[in-house]
């Protein structure tokens, strides 16, 4: 295609294609988790005791640490983008590395939690499994998949950052950042829904 044509111009909305596409995709992602939360609300209301019992067996402290891991990694992600925009390569690598650490740390703790649940027979088709744990594994499982989905491009960009050319694409980092903040945000909803909203008064049925 000859370069003289005026077909490829600046984005009309002034928002880069990747970024606009990511915003649309995050709208989609939001609706995906909304499906789970909708079902969660409906079935929690009709199974109060099962949910009370289930969530009282979760480890709030591990989840709290995980929450700080994710919030912290969101912060370092933002700092990484900032560094990339300032063309500060070493800081870009440092903060992306820290983001990676937060993400991996989250997965390590999730693995500890999961193996504990496995040992106590809470997995689907194990003896102590209840409807609450169906939600627990589905929602945290899909969330963990999203974390892994963030780690893969992060690793790619991090290793490329050490090449001669570096990784001088702040917009791509920003697109990844948008996604990463969304993954963080979803955890901010999943954490209280599963771990904190223990219906204490529900032991004898709700009033």
């Amino acid at each position: 295609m000859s370069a003289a044509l005026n077909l490829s111009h600046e984005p009309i909305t002034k928002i880069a294609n990747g970024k606009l596409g990511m915003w649309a995709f995050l709208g989609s992602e939001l609706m995906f988790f909304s499906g789970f939360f909708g079902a969660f609300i409906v079935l929690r209301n009709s199974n109060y005791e099962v949910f009370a019992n289930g969530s009282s067996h979760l480890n709030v402290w591990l989840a709290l640490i995980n929450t700080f891991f994710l919030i912290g990694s969101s912060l370092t992600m933002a700092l990484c983008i900032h560094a990339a925009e300032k063309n500060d390569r070493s800081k870009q690598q440092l903060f992306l590395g820290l983001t990676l650490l937060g993400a991996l740390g989250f997965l390590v703790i999730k693995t500890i939690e999961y193996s504990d649940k496995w040992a106590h027979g809470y997995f689907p088709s194990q003896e102590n499994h209840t409807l609450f744990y169906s939600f627990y594994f589905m929602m945290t499982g899909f969330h963990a998949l999203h974390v892994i989905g963030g780690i893969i491009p992060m690793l790619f960009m991090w290793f490329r950052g050490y090449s001669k050319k570096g990784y001088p694409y702040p917009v791509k980092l920003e697109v990844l950042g948008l996604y990463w903040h969304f993954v963080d945000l979803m955890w901010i909803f999943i954490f209280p829904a599963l771990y904190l909203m223990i219906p204490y008064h529900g032991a004898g049925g709700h009033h």
Partner: protein
Amino acid sequence: MSTAVLGSAEATTHGHGHDDAHHDLPWFRKYLFSTDHKVIAKQFLVSSLFFLFIGGAFALFIRWQIAYPGKPVPVIGSIMPDTWVTEAGSGVITPEFYAQLLTMHGTIMIFFVIIPFAVGMFGNFCIPLMIGTDDMAMPRLNMWSFWLVPPAGMIMMSAFFVEGGYAAAGWTSYPPLSAVIQSPTFTLSGQTLWLISLFLVGFSSIMGAVNYVTTVLNKRAKGMKLFDMPLTVWALFITAVIITLGTPVLAAAFAMLFMDNFLHTSFFLPDHLVTSSKYFGGGQPVLWQHLFWFYSHPAVYIMILPLMGIASDVLATFSRKPIYGYKAMVFAIAGIAFLGFIVWGHHMFQSGMNPLLGTTFMLSTIVIAVPSSIKVFNWLGTLWRGNIKFSTAMLNALAFVSMFIIGGLSGVFMASAPVDIYIHDTYFIVAHIHYVLFGGSLFGIFAGIYYWYPKMFGKMLNESWGRKHFYWTFITFNLTFFPMHVLGVAGHMRRIYDPNVYDFLKGLGGINEFITIAAIALGFSQLILVFNVLWSLKWGKKAPRNPWRANTLEWAAPAHPGHGNFDRDITVYRGPYEFSVEGRDLDYWPQWEPGKSISVHHHTVAVSDASEESSSVSNH
């Protein structure tokens, strides 16, 4: 005349545009893993046509069983005698396989034919060309959105070979039926394969939709405002928004049903369900229906809105008149899309719903008739006193409008809760869905294929064969599906295997046989389309750049555009429907042609500026 001018411009560019950028790619990047939106559109065309015939064959086997219960079914009966699909010795379809055929017919036609045709093919082909840009905003994502479909199709079809065969709970897969399976955990059944396959298709849809939204917002040609876009692009854009917001909810429901099947959880299985295997209970079957229809009702608009846009373009072009009420059309599309999200409960009047809530859903559903009627009357207003040319595309577009009216009117019947309670799950519903999905969507798709085939392949589709295809399809379609209204009102249930076991249905055998014969003719009529598409590819007349003398930007591209689409700068000067403008010699005024006009009493009048007009085409 401008056609002559366009023709001469065509001759100099020699049919093909500037596809030099495409020449250095290896063949598999050109034809298989291409990022060119036009190639991807063709891939969707091929896969959708393939699945159209599979889904159609399934429908004919279903029809055979209903019309001739107890008689050996042709083809299957002779290929696979004495297997699980046919009764031992007789060659009659087994009830189990009949349920699977029903499920697969609906699933394939909706998820592998109509949506890929309407959104995958036309979305890919039309959007970049009609907004005057070189490709999608994210071409590689676009390629992947197609390449999820063939594996999904293979997974869907492979269920034939697992124990128990295809999924058999209907295309709506209501639990408990779809969740109570006898297979142990961690085994793939027909139902789990169905879920995996449709999860992939949904992901493909979302990837496509995200791309369409970005492309339309960011990549319109210079000078093209949102309200300069053709209605096809508007419709596809709004459809993409529906897909972006609706499809993920279905994906979430699929994840839950998958866990119910694969891991024996009980999201959708209630307490005290007596089955052979162990369940925990506590779930709610109706929850699935809410989640499913939250997507699947908007999905019926995913399947009709793009075709409404296409019909608008075709009707305006072949009536040589501006579309009547362009902005009203846009707002009607947006209105239908919005209302589509708040009416899903009308599928569940019979599922146990608070009557007050049912009334709400009934009212919101009936309100959809308002934007739909705006569209229908605007189409009629477009045709009114137009200079109509009955090309094949036009015939199909007219069939789209008229069949949509019938399907829309029967829709109002079932929107009303009291009537729906009577006709619920009868053949009346089957008649309705086929009037909107076949009579509506598929005729719209045919119209689009006939309209854009020249731009797609650089050859004209044969009009004579096209007419034969149209008349055969139109007549046999109505013979097939109109009598189903009668069956439905007589109480003929929708998914039964053998009508003869019910005394009150015995008198309807004649109608059932009549429908089946018509359906077979309808099925074979589609071979004319395939023949025409293939024949014209080789022997069709070479297409000029703008064969229909239309206004929209895709006709500014070379007759068979290469990678990059356009061989000239595109600047948009006016809306897409300036036909028969006063003060112009030609009865059309392309969007890309410079020229001044004024508006007098809502009519565009060209202000003569001869120097600009003559230079518009020939200079490029």
